[in-house]
């Protein structure tokens, strides 16, 4: 009865889950851009969906349930479906044939390596607070109060941004403009 409890202390489970989800997110992320088995854009998009969902798992571990749900609804459920939609309609064959240029690959690896190195060095040099107290738990009511209280100005600016984006999409994609 108690064997499982002894095996995995209560506090360790979230930590383990973190590594699982983080690993999945990274793994799927790599498969999006550098899948050794398939160069099919649809496959890449599907892995991006999986990456997004694993990221939602990370949010759940942070008790940000609202964010997790929104992440899945918006990104996995809507944005990526539209991506798939476009990819399928375009039926990109060239992408599968395209060779990766050595120079670009090298430059990419170099820049990623630099950033990764910077981080690893930084993380070694820094002692992070092991258990920082979360400022906001995933309560939707609290989140709403924050958004419409403390952060109301950025929130409203974002609404202007969305308006602009909407106007832009219509302007750039409408068949014939008068």
């Amino acid at each position, binding site marked *: 009865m108690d064997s499982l*409890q002894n095996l995995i202390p209560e506090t360790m489970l979230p930590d383990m889950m973190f590594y699982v989800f983080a690993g999945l997110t990274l793994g799927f992320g790599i498969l999006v851009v550098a899948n050794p088995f398939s160069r099919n854009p649809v496959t890449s998009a599907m892995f991006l969906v999986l990456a997004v969902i694993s990221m*939602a798992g990370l949010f759940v571990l942070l008790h940000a349930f609202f964010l997790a*749900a929104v992440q*899945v*609804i918006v990104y996995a*459920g809507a944005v990526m479906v*539209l991506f*798939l939609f476009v990819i*399928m309609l375009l039926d990109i064959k060239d992408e599968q044939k395209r060779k990766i240029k050595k120079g670009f690959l090298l430059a990419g690896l170099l820049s990623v390596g630099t950033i990764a190195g910077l981080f690893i060095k930084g993380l070694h040099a820094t002692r992070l607070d092991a258990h920082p107290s979360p400022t906001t738990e*995933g309560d939707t009511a609290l989140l709403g109060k924050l958004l419409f209280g403390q952060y109301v100005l950025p929130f409203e600016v974002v609404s202007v941004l969305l308006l602009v984006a909407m106007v832009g999409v219509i302007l750039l994609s409408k068949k014939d403009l008068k």
Partner: protein
Amino acid sequence: MDWNFIIFSAVKIAVVIGVVQGMVAYAVLAERKISAWIQDRVGPNRTAPPFAKHIPVLGRLLTRLGMFQPLADGLKFMFKEDFTPAGVRKIYFFLAPAIAVIPAMLTVAVIPFGSVLGGQKMVIADLNVGILYTFGIVSLGVYGIVLAGYAANSKFPFLGGIRSSAQMISYEISMGLSVIPVLLIVGNLNLGQIIGWQAQHGWLILYAPLAFVIFLVASFAETNRLPFDLPEAETELVGGYHTEYGSMKFALFFLGEYSNMIASSGMMVTLFFGGWTLPFWGLDHPAATLVSGIIHILIFLVKMAAFIVLFIWVRWMFPRFRYDQLMDLGWRRFLPLALVNILITAIILWMRA
């Protein structure tokens, strides 16, 4: 890590999935029977196992009602040759049916299908963000259909897949927005609490009728049921996204569609019709005894069955929408309507506060 929790959850999951599967089977039967009645036919009334005629009255009755038909259908799907057409994209071809079923099954997890039974809450996962969870999972359901269309590598299934992705995303928005008045009134996203509120104040259909109408229509679109079954519109697209599928894989799409229907019936019952409660005979309190617990579950099932019948009835009464009409309805009628509904509800609540 509480063993009790794990065991009870496992049992609940097993039972719920079993019941949903059973309901799917009999919903198909109901579909066939009701369509038959509407069209002045008899419907399935022959299929019976050999032992059925030895049971005195009941055997004949069950046979006439077609109660054994789902069994026969299931067996047929299982034993049919599992044929994979040449030229399909193999991985997605196998993946798509599974993706179509899983979200449909997962949605049921947060719906409270009863009050309390033997000290256990009758809901698999009592999430604080229950509604959002549902929408999240429902929004993933579209992948099954899109990928099925893509995997087939042929024209009509592809068109079906594309249509469905556009349709489901469009109506998801109206659906999500239509629920917001409910959330505003109740002030909670937990489905259990929403039912609790309804037990106290009366069913939410009385407070948010417009929200219910929008939700109802959107769930027709979400489940790809007529009058919005454009993704499979057989007269235009042969069979739509599942043209190339056969045997059990096809059955899984079927299962997905009906599970979705059941899940959205469950959601509607929970959100607008008081869930497992009834406003009389003291049935609106969490059950104290085993019997009342079972009665609560039965109440929920009956309400749900009523919605399933509604789904079926509508399917055989209305013609299919044209695709542009469907989009027009979603974006230019329901979306503004849902937004106005939110605004009005918010204003009324603000005035009363």
